[in-house]
């Protein structure tokens, strides 16, 4: 089995490439994705290979990109729109919530939207208020959308491959901080990481971490540096999240810390803690804790204070250690 050391940008690029090579219904569209290869170079070289009709440099209009992609999808194509930064998606929010998400339902199953919307999200790159947001909860709150976020190149390929065969709209959130910071062995051959299945990336008995996206490497480093005897669950699919894997772990450890960058109030941590409280309260040996971004906009100079870090995670761990 051959494989290559790839970063996430390369893994996504090569996955798009191999799918485009065999399926001419896949069309990429977005701002500066063609000649320029995208501002993060994720689509680099694809226009040269597949032409301007399949890798479309669009006018600067997010609602137009998404709306057009929905129309293409309904007409039998498999569009992969890119929103340059997730922060700029909001003018297209109506198209996502009221068109893409509801198409199958409102048409009684006559029409569906096989579209994979890719967009870089999250902080840690000195992007300030408008190049750092983590808006996953907005999308996860919308029936009809499927929300995915890989935490490493291997999963990025596997999840994107599954998404490109999925028949409903996917919001594929790429943690931009991890674009080039981690390399994995990524098999050359096809494989899928199933949608809706979390991954237990570290095993232990005392404590469960539930996290995803850019926070996964942080939690893993914290766990290994401090010899924590903990389960670490990488959700991979944010919606529908893998409740079974969470419950199995919580029933074993009795203690949970949820870690995400997005603001605490009504973030995914709120949903997951309610889910655990509803079904496993008898197993809990301490409060469900959240280590998250604060309920402020994302600050530029002070982003290190905004992002969850080892110190804040350890503070939560110590608090739980007091419960025996």
């Amino acid at each position, binding site marked *: 089995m051959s494989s290559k050391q790839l970063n996430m940008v390369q893994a996504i690029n090569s996955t798009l490439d191999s799918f485009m090579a065999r399926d001419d219904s896949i069309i990429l569209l977005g701002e500066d994705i063609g000649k320029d290869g995208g501002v993060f170079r994720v689509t680099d070289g694809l226009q040269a290979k597949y032409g301007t009709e399949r890798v*479309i440099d669009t006018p600067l209009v997010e609602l*137009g990109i998404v709306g*057009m992609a929905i129309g*293409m999808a309904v*007409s039998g194509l498999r569009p992969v729109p890119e929103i340059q930064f997730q922060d700029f998606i909001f003018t297209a929010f109506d198209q996502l919530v009221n068109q893409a998400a509801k198409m199958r339902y409102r048409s009684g199953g006559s029409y569906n939207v096989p579209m994979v919307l890719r967009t870089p999200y999250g902080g840690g790159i000195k992007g300030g208020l408008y190049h750092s947001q983590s808006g996953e909860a907005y999308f996860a709150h919308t029936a009809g959308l499927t929300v995915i976020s890989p935490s490493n190149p291997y999963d990025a390929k596997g999840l994107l491959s599954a998404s490109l065969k999925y028949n409903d709209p996917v919001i594929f959130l790429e943690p931009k901080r991890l674009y080039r910071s981690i390399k994995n062995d990524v098999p050359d051959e096809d494989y899928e990481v199933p949608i809706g299945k979390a991954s237990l990336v570290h095993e232990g008995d005392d404590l469960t971490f539930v996290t995803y996206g850019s926070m996964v490497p942080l939690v893993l480093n914290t766990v290994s540096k401090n010899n924590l005897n903990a389960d670490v669950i990488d959700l991979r699919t944010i919606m529908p999240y893998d409740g079974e894997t969470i419950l199995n772990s919580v029933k074993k450890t009795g203690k949970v810390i949820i870690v995400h960058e997005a603001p605490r109030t009504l973030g995914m941590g709120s949903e997951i803690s309610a889910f655990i409280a509803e079904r496993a309260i008898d197993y809990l040996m301490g409060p469900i804790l959240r280590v998250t971004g604060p309920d402020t906009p994302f600050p530029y100079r002070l982003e290190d204070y905004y992002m969850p870090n080892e110190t804040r995670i350890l503070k939560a761990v110590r608090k739980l250690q007091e419960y025996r």
Partner: protein
Amino acid sequence: MDEKEMFVNAYRTMVLARTLDKKIVTAQRQGRVGFYTPTMGQEALQVGMSMALEKDDLIYEYYRDVPFMLHRGVPLETLIDQIMGNSMDNEKGRQMPSHYSAKEYNFMSVQSPVATNLPLAVGAGYAIKYRKKKNIVVTTFGDGSTSTPDFHAAMNMAAVFDLPVVFLCENNKWAISLPVEKQTKVEIWKKAEAYGMRGLKVDGNDLFAMYEVAKAEVEKTRNTGEPVLIEAVSYRMGPHSTSDDPSKYRTDTIPEGSEGDPIVIAEKKLKEKGYIDDAQIENIKNEAKELVDRKFEEREKVPPPKPESMFQDVYENPTWIIEEEKGDIL
């Protein structure tokens, strides 16, 4: 079909649509229907456009397009089932009345947020061009909808990418209570120039004028693959919806059966051309009434959707979350 037959058929559809319109409005007042957005006044422009189209053309319509749908062959049952939201409805009773869907006839399902169908129509146009097909897309919307960002985005993209999309603005002069003069400073058809596409205005109350323009423009779009904006000037003869009372904001009206009524205008021209006489008109009206009454009574007996259908079609396969919620509720 020869020209006479074509226009008599068009007229028959206009009458059928008007008859259905009045039936639903009456039924709404009697509490048999929840809500409705009447089409009265916009029959000629829709049927005139429909006459110019081919079977495989795609329509991204809005909530006031009953005559358009009837003319393309959508059965009365399909429309009435949607209005009732019953178990035979294409949409399984999920949408409020006036939000039809008829994939068999290439009608997209109607959404409420106005003009959000326009960018989709552009995407459909892209798919046609990409697959080198010869069909075209028609998308419809009201005068008020031209103020939206979606209108702007769609017009711009259709022109930039040279796509075979006919933008049909059904200017009925009102957007609920806002007259078109307060909606925009320029005439709607003139906006086309700013985007780099053909634009023109037509008397949408005149079936013959509408057909002529639609035929010519559809042909151009089909042959060149380029978009066009057609402003069909008409008038919303009824209220915005069955929940609306227009006397609060307007005094001008075109009463049914008056000179400005598109059905009266059509009758006059059809008679002038010798295509139809009073007896035939009478006959067409009676037939429409009998048919609509019969179908309406019949469809009222169709049972409502089964509760479990509420949990279907959110995704291709229901998530464990939805399955669980279904178990809790049912």
